[in-house]
């Protein structure tokens, strides 16, 4: 008999967040690409230009949210993919921990970078 699972592992929240971040990412990612490849060509990017953009609070916040959403979406996606392939037991816990730490580090480092760009450090 397959085990009767406890009802206390909804999993639905992560699923829903994955969709919500996705919806958010579509917009921001498109904007981001457009901004840095078409409006400003990537090869023309300079610290000055970056700083100018970052100092706009709206842009700064968008980018930070972009980062958080992307990090969650990506890391959660990877985690799901592994669980789908049957990751279970201790390895699963370890992977989860590693991914959470990696994701967290990414976000922290990213915010730090953004602050540096804006010159607010």
């Amino acid at each position: 008999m397959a085990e009767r699972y406890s009802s206390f592992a909804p999993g639905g929240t992560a699923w829903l967040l994955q969709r919500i971040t996705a919806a958010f990412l579509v917009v921001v990612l498109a904007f981001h690409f457009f901004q840095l490849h078409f409006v400003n060509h990537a090869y023309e990017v300079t610290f000055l230009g970056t700083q100018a953009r970052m100092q706009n609070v709206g842009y700064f916040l968008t980018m930070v949210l972009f980062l958080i959403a992307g990090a969650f979406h990506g890391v959660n996606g990877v985690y799901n993919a592994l669980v789908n392939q049957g990751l279970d037991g201790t390895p699963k816990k370890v992977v989860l921990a590693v991914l959470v730490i990696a994701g967290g580090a990414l976000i922290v480092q990213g915010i730090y970078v953004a602050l540096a760009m804006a010159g607010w450090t």
Partner: protein
Amino acid sequence: MSTQQQEPETQEAPKDPDMKGAQSPQDRRLAEKESGAIDEESEKQAELEGETVHIKVFRYDPEVEGKQEPRFDDFHVPFEKGMTVLDAVMYARDEYDSSLTFRHSCRQAVCGSDAFFVNGKQRLGCKTQISDLEQPVRIEPLPHQEVVKDLVVDMSHFYDQMHAVEPYFQDEDTPDVNDLEEQRQSPENREKIKMSSRCIWCGACMSSCNIAAGDNKYLGPAAINKAYKFAMDDRESEEIKEHRLRILEQEHGVWRCQTQFSCTEVCPKDIPLTEHIQELKREAVKKNLKFW
């Protein structure tokens, strides 16, 4: 007039195709009548030419030396109009190799025993016309299940998953049967669960789902569909519906589905499995949002 004068037609495939023309009372009679019908002529022609279908069947038996190493056996089966994949393997078994093993029973797509992997797709043997397939027709047991022997796979995991969703009416609070009172259900609600109720437990969907293959705990499309049938049935009370959603929304429930659509693609009963799974995900999310 009785049937008694009729000679029993030989079941065996004639070795020499011309023999059949000489033997069969039908051909004799057809010739006598000189019926000009063209299609009859050409059909007879096809028969005379001894058209055969080439099938390659997966063989494995843990006990028999020579079959312990899985292999494919080739059979050439005389073709007949309307022949299904199941007919072909049955013919091969009865005429060439009686140890060829597979499950089958109803021959009409209701018992769900004969889901095989035919030319790379999960199909019901009895529901697949062999003339629709490219030759040689490769017939294998369902992927992602352990092979017991030849085309027979171990279905116990599938059954476990089916049972895990508590697939039975739970309401005890029904009208008294002695009053011959039924629980009312609107035709619309019955229509809503109609497709989901057609599942014949063939396991084709489970076998086609890559996620179910990787994650043994994943309930899988068939079991989720079974749960859908109950969760959507208005005859059960709200509490029970919630209980059902709670089973479905655990980690290895509906969330594991990655909308691969393979299940929907192969289901011989045309059940819109992916759609049902998605609807349950939304239901579960809605229920959780209510809590917040």
